[in-house]
C-alpha cells in the first residue's frame, strides 16, 4: 500500500504541475522544470508559482496526516485531530488578529498563525499536565476543547469588531494554498522538520502504547511522556500547516482512518508514513481541482478534499467492523 500511495503522490504532483488556471503545454512544463528554454510567462507560472505550491501541498498534506495519526495513536481516540490540542483555534485567532487588527503586518501572517497555534497547544498541555490526574487522555481532550473555545471566542470577537475587513480572512478560514513562492515555506520549514523527525521516532513507542499503559510501561515506555511528545510533534506540524494553508484540520481527522481501514492494520509504523503519503496526495489533488474547476477563479481547497475523500471513506466505513 505504501508503494500505491507513493505512486498516487507522484501522479497528483505531476497533475498539480501540469494543470492550472493558464494552459501551459506539458512539453513546456517539462522544459521549464529541467531548465530548458521556454517563454518567460510559462517559466514564471511553472517554476515560480506551481512548483512551490505543489511542494507546499505535499508538505502540508503530509503534516496534517501525520499530526492526526500521532494524536489518534497517542490518545487512543478515533476523534482526535489537531483541533483537540487547540492548534486550529489558536492558528485561526493568530491569522485573524494579523489580517484584521494589524493589516500592515500582513507579511507576518504565517508566523502569527504558527505562534498562536503553538501557544494554544502549550496552554492545553500546561492545563492537562497539571494537578490531579495529570497527563490523562480525558483531561487533555477537555483542556483542548476549552482552550479551543477560548481562542474561537477571540476570533469571533475580532470578526465582529471589524466586519468591513472580513473578506481578507475568509480564504484562510476556508483553507487553501496560495501561490506565494518559497518565502513562507522557507520561514516555517524548521517546525515541519522537527515535527516529522519526532513523528518518525515515536512510531514504535506509540505501537507499544497501543497495548495499554501498563503493558507499555512494562516494556520500558513512559505513556505520559510519549503522549506529551506526540502532542508536541502534532502541534508543531499542525500549526506549521495552518500557517501555510489555513484551517484544514479535516485532513488530520480523516486521513489516518482512511489508511487504517484501507490497509486493515493500525500499527503506527505503517499508519504514520502512510498517512503522510495519503494526506499529501489528497491535498495535491484537491488543490489542483480548486485551481482548475472554475479557472481563473480559485476556490477553497477544503470542499474538494471532502469531495475526493469522503465518498471512499464512507465506502470503507460501511465495511469496517
Amino acid at each position, binding site marked *: 500500500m505504501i508503494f500505491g500511495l507513493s505512486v498516487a503522490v507522484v501522479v497528483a504532483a505531476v497533475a498539480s504541475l501540469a494543470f492550472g488556471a*493558464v494552459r501551459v503545454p506539458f512539453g513546456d512544463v517539462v522544459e521549464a522544470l529541467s531548465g530548458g528554454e521556454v517563454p518567460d510567462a510559462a517559466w514564471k507560472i511553472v517554476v515560480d508559482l506551481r512548483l512551490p505550491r505543489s511542494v507546499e501541498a505535499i508538505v502540508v498534506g503530509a503534516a496534517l496526516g501525520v499530526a492526526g495519526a500521532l494524536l489518534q495513536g497517542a490518545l487512543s481516540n478515533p476523534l482526535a485531530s489537531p483541533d483537540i490540542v487547540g492548534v486550529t483555534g489558536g492558528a485561526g485567532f493568530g491569522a485573524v488578529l494579523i489580517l484584521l487588527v494589524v*493589516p500592515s503586518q500582513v507579511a507576518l501572517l504565517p508566523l502569527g498563525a504558527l505562534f498562536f497555534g503553538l501557544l494554544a497547544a502549550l496552554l492545553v498541555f500546561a492545563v492537562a499536565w497539571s494537578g490531579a490526574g495529570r497527563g490523562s487522555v480525558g483531561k487533555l481532550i477537555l483542556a483542548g476543547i476549552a482552550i479551543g473555545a477560548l481562542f474561537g471566542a477571540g476570533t469571533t470577537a475580532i470578526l465582529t469588531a471589524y466586519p468591513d475587513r472580513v473578506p481578507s480572512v475568509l*480564504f484562510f478560514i476556508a483553507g487553501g494554498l*496560495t501561490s506565494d513562492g518559497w518565502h513562507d515555506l522557507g520561514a516555517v520549514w524548521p517546525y515541519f522538520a522537527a515535527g516529522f523527525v519526532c513523528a518518525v521516532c515515536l512510531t514504535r513507542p506509540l505501537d507499544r502504547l497501543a497495548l495499554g499503559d501498563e503493558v507499555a510501561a512494562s516494556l520500558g515506555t513512559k505513556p505520559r511522556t510519549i503522549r506529551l511528545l506526540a502532542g508536541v510533534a502534532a502541534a508543531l506540524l499542525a500549526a506549521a500547516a495552518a500557517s501555510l494553508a489555513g484551517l484544514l484540520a479535516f485532513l488530520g481527522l480523516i486521513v489516518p482512518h482512511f489508511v487504517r481501514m484501507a490497509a486493515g492494520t493500525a500499527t503506527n509504523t505503517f499508519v504514520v508514513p502512510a498517512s503522510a503519503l495519503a494526506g499529501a496526495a489528497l491535498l495535491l489533488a484537491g488543490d489542483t481541482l480548486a485551481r482548475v474547476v472554475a479557472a481563473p*477563479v480559485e476556490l477553497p481547497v477544503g470542499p474538494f478534499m471532502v469531495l475526493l475523500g469522503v465518498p471512499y471513506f464512507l465506502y470503507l466505513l460501511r465495511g469496517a467492523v
Partner: protein
Amino acid sequence: MVRNLGYPNQIDTELRTSLRAVKPAVALLVLACVFVAAAALGATTGDAGAADKRKRIVALTPFAANTLVNVGVRPVAIGQMAVGHKGVSPRLKGVRQLPLSHPNGPNMEQIAEIDPDVVLTSQAWRKGTATMRDLAITVREMDAATASAVPSKIRAIGRAYGKPKQTDRLVRKVNREIAYAVKGKPIRERPTVLMVLGVGRTPYVFLNNSWGGSVAKRAGAKLLGGELRGSGGYVKVSDEYVVQQDPDIILAVPHGNAEDLPAIREHMLSNPAWSTTKAVQNGRVYVTLDDALLQPNIDVGHTIKRVRTQFLKNW
C-alpha cells in the same frame, strides 16, 4: 341726503368691486380645503405619494442618507459608517446614528425604539429585513450597486420620499459631474487594471458589477477578471491568470489605517507572483484607503475623477 343716498351706492359699488377681487382668493381657499381633506382621506386609506414625504425614514447607507437630505428630506436616523461622518453630508450632522453589524444591520431594539415607517437598506443587511418587516416597517433596498445605477436610484428615492424638482436637480447635478469626470482626451487603449480588495496574498479582485469596479471601469480602466462571475462583486483569481494577463496597473484597496499604507504597498510589491507584471516593473502599484471605492455614494463623479487622475493618470 343725496349725498347720503349716494354714499351707500358708492359703498355697494366698492363692495362689488372688492368681492370680484376676493372671488379668486375664496375659490383658492375652497380648493385648498378640498385638497387638504382629500390628502387627509388619502393618508387614512394608505395612499402613497404625498403622504410618503411625511414618513419617518431611516437610511442605513450613505447613498440613501445623502440622497434624502439632497431632495429635502431629513431622515430620523442613519447607519453609522465605519469611517465616521466621512462620506455623509454635513447637513446630516446631529441625526441619530445607528451602529451596523453584519449580517443583520442595525440593532433591532434601536429600530423598534425609533419606530420608523420606512428603512432604506442595502443588500448587505438583508438578513435583518425580515425582522424589521415583522415590526411593521416598510424595508426597501435602495443602494446603487454600480456607478451607472446612481441616477436611477436617486430618482427612485426622490420620487418616493422627496420633492420632484429637487430630485431632478440632483440627478442633473450627478450626471453633470460624471460627464465632467470622464471629459478630456479620449481613451484609445484602456489600461488593464488588477483591482484588489483587502490584504493578504489572496487577490480578491473587483468585478465589473461591484461598486469600485464599475467606478474604475467608468474612469477608463479595463478590469482584470472584471467579466468573471462571483457573488458580492468580488472573486479570488489565480496568480497564474494575473501573470498571463499582465496588468498595466495594480490598484489595491486594503483595509487599515493611513500609516499602514507603505507597509501594505511593500507587501504587495514583494508578491513573487506579480514581480514580472508591467504594473510592478513600471512602478504602477497603488494602494488606497479611499472608502469611496467600496461604498456607493452620490458623489460618484468625484470618485471617477479621482481614479482617473490619481491612478489611471489620464492613460
